[in-house]
């Protein structure tokens, strides 16, 4: 399965036309990580936005695992959009394959594809809701 086919199956890209998905697949690179390899590092500038195509990752603060992420999930969006450095590490839980979108490209992509921005916003809202429930 090529990258465009993998992307077309994910919720984040569900409202885009096949041509738009293909353009995204050709515009950004895949990245593959071994289990336990760090993908996003706390405190470091220039982190990318990642969409998981295959495998799982964990979000880690110190020794605490905050969340596990799987296919179709994404991470790095907060640092990429705010210009701040990530507040947690993201570590590959298994062999992990991601689409990697550089931070300076993410804003342009979301403005060009507002359907994708809306999807991202909804998924982000659901995450906030869930983390609120945890605290409650």
């Amino acid at each position: 399965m090529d990258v465009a086919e993998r992307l077309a199956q994910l919720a984040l890209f569900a409202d885009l036309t096949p041509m738009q998905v293909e353009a995204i697949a050709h515009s950004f690179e895949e990245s593959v990580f071994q289990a336990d390899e760090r993908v996003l590092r706390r405190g470091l500038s220039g982190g990318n936005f990642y969409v998981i195509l295959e495998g799982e990752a964990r979000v880690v603060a110190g020794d605490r695992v905050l969340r596990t992420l799987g296919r179709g999930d994404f991470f790095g969006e907060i640092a990429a959009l705010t210009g701040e450095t990530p507040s947690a590490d993201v570590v590959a839980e298994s062999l992990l394959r991601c689409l990697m979108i550089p931070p300076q490209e993410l804003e342009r992509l979301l403005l060009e594809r507002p359907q994708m921005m809306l999807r991202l916003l909804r998924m982000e809202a659901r995450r906030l809701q869930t983390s609120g429930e945890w605290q409650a």
Partner: protein
Amino acid sequence: MAGVAPPFPPGDYDVTVVGSGPGGLQTSYWLRRFGVQHAVLSRDGAPAGMFQRFPIFQRLITWTKPDAPVARTTREYEWYDHNSLLADEPELKALVPGFMDRAFDLPSRSEMEAGIAAFANKAALRVRYGCTWESTRYDGDRVVLATTDGDYSSRAVVFAVGVTKPWFAAVPGLEHGAHYVDAMEPERYADRTVFIVGKRNSGFELAQGLLPWARSIFLASPRPVQTSALALSPLRVRYLHPYDEYARGGPGTYVLDVAIERIDRHANGFRVVANGTTWDGRLVLDVDDVIAATGFQTPMGDLPRIGLVTVNDGRVPALTPFWESVSLPGVYFAGNASQGAKGLAKRGAGASSTAVNGFRYNARVLAQHIAETLNVRTSEQAPIADLGSFLLHELSTAPELWVQKGYLCRVVGRGRTGLVDGGVLPLAHFLDSRDGDAAAASVEVDERGAIVPTIYVRRAGEISEHLLTPHPLHEYSSDVYTKEIEHVLRQLPA
């Protein structure tokens, strides 16, 4: 020489290197230097690999300046010469400029080939030529290569087989066209309409070569040309006339953002049906020729069958920061395929591992890593008297850092008697290593494209990052920087 047996008969070796292009030769040179027993096999009959034939329009896109403000035998000269292989011995350094006729500051294909072959010859690098790797298996933790000459069993294998196998994108009907490697002499395209699939190096190289001949040229792929990326690409040095003509509205050359639905062959040529990716609409074009400039892949043989994980649509192996397969232990890649290690890719910036200038450093770091992993050698760590000035000197002059931006870094750690030079390492490895307190310098590119010297401090497992202010002459030895770096390095315990 007739009657002389070829080197490296089948058998057991610590390491087997496959390939006799610049990646294989550079790896073999450093393995020998670090005392690692190894065999080198090549299916070719002579060194220099792809430079025996490519690039087809005969001119490289990586520069070498024959005259520079520093001597050719210095480490700093490597920064001016992106094509020669590396060596410790002065007589083996900077061999490519000696072959250049200076028509350009970019060597021709034959000049490059001569430079690489001279390196193999002068360094007396032994290669078993005409020996083809056929299949791969594990025997316990040893990797066994079956070849046309017999089996080679090793603790580690380094594949330096390039990214040389023509790759066709998954476009229905594209297989009816020619691939870049089969493109004819430019004059054969006189007065023809040529549709080139692909807008990367080989696509633009072809279009540039055909500009004086073809009636019209279409360059097409789904991804728009990124002018900001092109501004930093070696491609712009040579092949941007087609894009320039199109951007300024010149007729006959078109750079299209389209996904190709299908390519049909008919009696007089081809019909291409394509849909816009950055614009709404459809194009139906009748053309005389279709050429796939969709690039190349690593010739991986049977490695995917035994579990090699790949990246970039299956075109290159997915690699760790030390260029080992993420899925096949003991299987390493050197040369152009070392691009399968992405490193930190901060702000999406990739390493320079697709060209000799970058992968020659990868080869040295890889050979040292293998020597240490196999317990053949422990690196000698020279004492560092003044940490700040050492790192600032590296940031001003180290060709490894300036070529492999954001991928390689210079490390200073703590030895038994004080600070010691930890050598050049992949930055991702340094950041994730738990080897104690240390500092590292790397050269990176920020979101505006400015080159930024960066210092990392690792203390009690925690990393802090410090971006120094860029200097227009890349000169980092003044008092301003000395004070800045001393402030940063205060975090390290005395």
